[in-house]
């Protein structure tokens, strides 16, 4: 198992109620596997999780990307800076 840290921002943090969560994931877990795991754990935040963008090590991640050991993952809504 790989331990990964998931940071949460904006609506994701509000709906899940945490700034950061830690998960133990099987090796070779891909980004697309992450959302079902989180939705099962936080069903009230399902809609935000579904719409979230995912980054791995500070880079936007495609669904097929494998999450490496020790990765810093983040979930957040579409950006609205400026």
């Amino acid at each position, binding site marked *: 198992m790989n331990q990964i840290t998931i*940071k949460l*921002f*904006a*609506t994701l943090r*509000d709906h899940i109620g945490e700034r950061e969560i830690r998960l133990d994931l099987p090796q070779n877990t891909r980004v697309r596997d992450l959302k079902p795991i989180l939705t099962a754990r936080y069903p009230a935040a399902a809609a935000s999780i579904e719409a979230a*963008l995912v*980054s791995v090590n*500070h*880079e*936007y991640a495609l669904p097929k990307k494998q999450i490496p050991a020790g990765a810093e993952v*983040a979930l*957040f*809504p*579409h*950006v*609205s*800076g*400026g």
Partner: protein
Amino acid sequence: MIKSPTIIKITEKELDINDLLAKITLPSTGAICSFTGLVRGQTNRDGFPSETKYLEYEAYIPMAEAKLKQVAEEIRARWPAIQGIAIVQRIGRLYPETPTVLIACAAAHRDTGAFDAARYGIDRLKEIVPVWKKEVGPEGEAWVEGEHQGGK
């Protein structure tokens, strides 16, 4: 040849535009185009006037800084005449009429892309830099939805 300065920053401090422009000025710089974004206190939402008490900005700081750097690199790749670049996003609680973001692109002359580069910079920042804002008004608070689909 002097290396062109690049200033990239996510900050809670007031934007000092005089100072930022001075920091990206080389002896061969003759023109700087800057874009400043500000908190609107009065706006129109679907045709109705709306008031904002303040905006609360937050950033995923290390990724935001990496993405600001990417925006600066994209500018240099597209407009090679650009010299200094400053891209600074302020975060925290920001009240109406306060500058929130500065994109400044310097060049020897005004006709080698400085205007287009600054315009591109703010568009890309709003597309890819992980910053979010929550609007607080007389009727409560709401996260502001991004204009774009997120990027790469």
